């Protein structure tokens, strides 16, 4: 059996390549939050309390568009519903753990750590294999907090002309690169994007994110039932 620390280190090494895009993502978040009018303390607080790139960007996007708190919170919830899947998938590897470990690990269950640790957990049967997930999550935590801070500091000196806010859709686009190869996913992407764009000005309370996501999921439900190609 490998030592806890060794597995923790392995988690850090494995997640490192995925940290490269987190750097610009964190910077952009810090810059945008200040730009929109959050104080440096609130911006840092968001990264510490929420600790989720997609959630925090959605928060900013809707906040700057004047959405109500209820819509912002439920949109953040909708964006996060993918974590339910992650949790369900890794829970079988964590079922023997004490509650306190489950509470800690939940905070670190983010896209990147899930992506790499899911592979590791499947292949290894050591009782302490969950340290891999903690290593990956902790690495991401350090990168996310430090780039947020850097974004806050740099914020004022990055010219608006650069159009860095365009990096937001690009980052989400990048998270979908593998889905563009699958037929059903492409249809879902088109439906959701079209509903959001057309509904942007017409769906009340800026709830277009939720409405579009539900339309996309509904499409997925129908298509996966009728078409059986993967």
């Amino acid at each position: 059996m490998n030592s806890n620390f060794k597995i923790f280190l392995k988690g850090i090494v494995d997640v490192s390549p995925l940290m490269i895009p987190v750097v610009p993502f964190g910077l952009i978040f810090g810059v945008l939050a200040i730009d929109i009018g959050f104080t440096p303390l609130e911006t840092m607080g968001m990264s510490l309390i929420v600790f989720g790139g997609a959630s925090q960007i959605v928060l900013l996007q809707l906040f700057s568009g004047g959405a109500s708190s209820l819509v912002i919170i439920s949109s953040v919830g909708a964006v996060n519903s993918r974590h339910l899947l992650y949790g369900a998938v890794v829970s079988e590897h964590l079922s023997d753990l004490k509650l306190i470990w489950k509470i800690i690990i939940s905070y670190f269950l983010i896209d990147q750590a899930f992506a790499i640790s899911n592979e590791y957990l499947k292949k290894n049967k050591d009782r302490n294999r969950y340290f891999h997930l903690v290593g990956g999550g902790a690495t991401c935590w350090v990168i996310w907090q430090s780039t947020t801070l850097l974004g806050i500091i740099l914020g004022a000196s990055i010219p608006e002309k650069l159009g860095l806010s365009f990096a937001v859709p690009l980052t989400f686009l990048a998270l979908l690169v593998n889905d563009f190869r699958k037929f059903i996913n492409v249809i879902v992407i088109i439906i959701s994007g079209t509903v959001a764009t057309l509904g942007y000005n017409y769906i009340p309370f800026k709830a277009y994110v939720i409405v579009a996501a539900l339309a996309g999921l509904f499409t997925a439900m129908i298509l996966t039932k009728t078409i059986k190609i993967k």
Partner: protein
Amino acid sequence: MSNWTLIIYCGLITYLTRFTMIALIKKEMFNDRIREILSFVPSAIFPAIIFPAIFINETGLFQIEENPKILAAIIAMVIGILSRSIIATIFSGLASYWFLIFVV
């Protein structure tokens, strides 16, 4: 609602989506069908952020002409599909956007 209250609620709901499945639900409660549908969540939700950010301009109007973001996003998407690289997707999109607004 103050900004801090909003941040704390958003943090809570984010944490709960991570915690509930790990702590409360047994994996048997999750059948293959639900797993299959949940695997579409990213494809269903990210475009709702991507598309308006590209097609809706600062004044809240749909803009398809003289919109360099469209071409830049298409280039990023093609690079992304070919390279399967997150970082290549982001940088090719930003680079083509800057090329289109500063050079062309």
